[in-house]
């Protein structure tokens, strides 16, 4: 099986090389058949990589321990869900995942464009093929996922317990889909530059892919944040960790790209900017893939130096230099077709939004790579912490949310006073009312940035609400439809536009959650004995009793031992009352004991916090526990002395008794408790954004014809305005 897999990858590499050569030859000699053949080669590549991926999945599912990577990240007793998803926690597996997604996306876009854009497509095929060649070469020559052992070990390592969380297993494929997805618009941009067809065709052909990539990447980032919040024991969702930053940077430039291409489509402006943005986005996506595994920056994610540093850096440098040279050479072809008419126009708001997004990206880039920068400049490695990031990103985020309210409704070209009044009078009034209400009714004034963010959220929601209201009103007046029908048809007829509005509402809600939870969180770390009580925020927290579970895992992670606590929580004003059950899972250390002997090793492996959260739209109550195992040392030592020679079954009974000892004679435990107001709106906002993106992506029938007509209309309009 491993031989077949290796062969698939090797033949895949040859196929990709062929696709590059055939596409270039076909393009240079204008031979359609060669170009067609390169497309078929890309289809074949997708088939080969899917086969290889499938073979590896089978190896994981059947726990074939002759595969080296299976032993690294799985074992026979790993739960099935984590067997399936264990592959991408290894370097080899994640490279294969990259190639898999790339080949599928490439095949899809080449099929969609098989009858259009005859000049650009061959070069785009060559670019996509070349990217595939790079990743496949790594897979074949450096990091083969099909390396086998002659004598398989009896058991694998199992999946790292920290990663045993559903969000964490879906998160990597989502992020990668985002990273990989941006290679499609990148390839077409390069094709457009080479062929000097720098109009909006390449944008229209790949806009959907850019949006798909953006959606996946954003969803992946959200899942990562959710995992951090609900699995790691610190209670936050974002730490400005290098790897988190690496995923956010291409998302920011991708967001800028999605907006600025509209200006090019509508007005023929910003051509240099757009190709530069997509090049930047793709390079940042490669950098993101690389940073996770490079170990060049200290992060909780990046561990151990990878062997791939040099080839990856060389590839990134080649992409960057090649693209920059190409853009410079083609500058004369990228001249703008129009000028900015007025600073009060949608174009200029989009430009501003782009500058802010790129500014945020630059801040994050600088902070992330500061250890390297400072070492180069001063000779000593230094780093900047979250406060430094916050001090820049907070004001920029406020500007972004403000622009998210202005951009969708301000007029193109030149907004008149009448247009401004019609678009913003009601939302501004509502935002002002929100501000007054917040000042009078809530303690929001304690944090000025949060207060501004709440006000801006009101503004954005009002803008979106007003647009929907007016659209529905118009349909009702014209067609006499009932409000729900009118709303559904309104959105269905113009999905891109209303999808965009929904995304903007989502981002406003997300920042509402960020602002409220970061400024008004109540946190408390406290050490309690069973029966003791403490206060957190407006709540009284009582440690009722400890729990100890042996071979009775309720979270599906396969942990043999769990120590936890039953916590009674009561609101100080009475009323709300609930119970939480935070815990900690313990995994055994490898065979051979360790300092604590036969029985001690069961407590000496990995351990993971199992957070318990009482979710709520008004506030979350979050709790984690750190049991103190010192009380178990004596019984473990005694068991080692008396029972180490017993057969396995009897040892299990002894272990069960030790575990139960924690419950019978409980030591004090350390708890972290957070009362976070409105933090759930981060996830709700993310969900709304996802919904909006899907709305915009959903294919419409007849959209094609309308698109063509609107393009002609726009072109005609431009020519008329010039005449």
């Amino acid at each position: 099986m491993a031989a077949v897999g290796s062969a698939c990858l090797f033949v895949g590499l040859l196929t990709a090389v062929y696709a590059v050569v055939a596409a270039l030859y076909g393009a240079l000699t204008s031979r359609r058949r060669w170009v067609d053949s390169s497309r078929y080669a890309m289809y074949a590549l997708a088939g080969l990589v899917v086969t290889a991926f499938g073979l590896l999945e089978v190896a994981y599912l059947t726990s074939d321990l002759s595969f080296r990577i299976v032993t690294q990240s799985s074992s026979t007793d790993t739960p099935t869900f984590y067997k399936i998803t264990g592959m991408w926690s290894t370097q080899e597996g994640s490279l294969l995942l990259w190639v898999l997604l790339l080949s599928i996306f490439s095949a899809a876009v080449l099929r969609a464009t098989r009858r259009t854009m005859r000049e650009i497509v061959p070069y785009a095929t060559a670019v996509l093929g070349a990217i595939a060649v790079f990743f496949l070469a790594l897979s074949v020559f450096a990091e083969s996922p099909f390396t086998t052992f002659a004598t398989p070990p009896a058991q694998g390592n199992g999946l790292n317990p920290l990663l045993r969380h559903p969000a964490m297993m879906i998160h990597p494929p989502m992020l990668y889909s985002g990273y990989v997805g941006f290679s499609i618009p990148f390839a077409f941009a390069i094709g457009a530059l080479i062929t000097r067809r720098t109009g909006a065709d390449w944008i229209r052909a790949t806009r959907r892919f850019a949006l798909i990539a953006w959606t996946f990447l954003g969803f992946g980032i959200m899942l990562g944040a959710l995992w951090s919040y609900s699995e790691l024991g610190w209670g936050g969702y974002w730490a400005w960790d290098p790897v988190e930053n690496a995923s956010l940077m291409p998302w920011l430039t991708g967001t800028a790209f999605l907006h600025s291409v509209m200006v090019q489509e509508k007005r023929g402006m910003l051509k240099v900017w757009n190709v530069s943005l997509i090049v930047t986005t793709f390079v940042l996506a490669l950098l993101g893939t690389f940073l996770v595994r490079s170990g060049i920056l200290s992060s909780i994610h990046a561990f151990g130096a990878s062997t791939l540093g040099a080839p990856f850096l060389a590839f990134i440098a080649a992409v960057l230099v090649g693209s920059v040279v190409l853009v410079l050479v083609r500058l004369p072809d990228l001249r703008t077709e129009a000028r900015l008419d007025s600073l009060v126009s949608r174009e200029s708001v989009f430009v501003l939004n782009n500058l802010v997004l790129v500014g945020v990206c630059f801040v994050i880039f600088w902070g992330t790579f500061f250890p390297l920068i400072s070492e180069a400049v001063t000779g000593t490695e230094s780093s900047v912490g979250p406060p430094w990031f916050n001090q820049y990103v907070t004001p920029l985020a406020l500007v972004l949310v403000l622009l998210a309210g202005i951009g969708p409704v301000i007029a193109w070209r030149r907004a008149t006073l009448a247009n401004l009044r019609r678009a913003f009078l009601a939302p501004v009034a509502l935002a002002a009312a929100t501000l007054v209400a917040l000042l009078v009714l809530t303690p929001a004034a304690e944090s000025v940035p949060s207060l501004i963010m709440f006000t801006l959220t009101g503004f954005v929601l009002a803008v979106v609400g007003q647009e929907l209201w007016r659209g529905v009103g118009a349909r009702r007046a014209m067609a006499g439809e009932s409000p729900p029908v009118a709303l559904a048809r309104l959105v269905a007829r113009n999905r891109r536009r209303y999808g965009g509005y929904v995304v903007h509402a989502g981002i406003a809600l997300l920042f509402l959650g960020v602002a409220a939870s970061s400024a008004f969180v109540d946190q408390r770390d406290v050490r309690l004995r069973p029966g003791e009580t403490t206060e957190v925020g407006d709540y009284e927290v009582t440690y009722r009793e400890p729990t100890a579970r042996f071979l009775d895992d309720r979270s599906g992670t396969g942990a043999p031992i769990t120590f936890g606590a039953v916590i009674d929580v009561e609101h100080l004003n009475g009323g709300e009352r609930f119970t939480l059950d935070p815990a900690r899972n313990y995994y055994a250390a490898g065979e051979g004991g360790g300092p604590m002997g036969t029985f001690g090793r069961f407590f000496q492996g990995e351990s993971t916090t199992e957070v318990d959260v009482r979710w709520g739209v008004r506030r979350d109550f979050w709790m984690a526990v750190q049991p103190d195992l010192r009380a178990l040392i004596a019984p473990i030592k005694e068991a080692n002395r008396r029972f180490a020679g017993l057969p396995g079954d009897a040892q299990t009974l002894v272990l069960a008794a030790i575990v139960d000892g924690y419950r019978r004679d409980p030591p004090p435990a350390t708890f972290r408790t957070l009362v976070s107001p409105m933090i759930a709106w981060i996830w709700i906002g993310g969900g709304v954004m996802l919904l909006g993106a899907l709305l915009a992506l959903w294919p419409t029938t007849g959209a094609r014809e309308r698109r063509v007509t609107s393009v002609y209309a726009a072109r005609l309009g431009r020519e008329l305005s010039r005449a």
Partner: protein
Amino acid sequence: MNPRRKRKLRAVVLLTVALLLAGALVYTSFSAATEAATPSQLVRAAEAGRSYELTGKVVDGSVERRGDGLSFAVRDRTGRTAIPVVYSGVVPDPFREGREVIVEGRVRDGTLVADRDSLVTKCPSKFSEQKGSQSS
């Protein structure tokens, strides 16, 4: 004002703003940064009151719980020079003796008094073998 001059003016204003922001960025990052240090560097010469980011390995047998907090020693990645650390706050799940950690704090009487919640533990080698393989 003619359109050409107007555009030029705009470009100059924009560029100035960008440069000022970039300048602020560079200045604050250098002034707010925490210096990375190994245990032997701190033992040899640590400025009092200055914040350091210590990286190294947790010395075997040195971890001790103290009420709410934790005390342990961190040694050089290769070598024996070690510095004691007192820490309070969240202990990351992978934290264990022999593991590589990063912790921020100030040196007082030869001990690193760590900032709350500043402890970061790198992934155990069992899951990364020699090659380094840790999912994002």
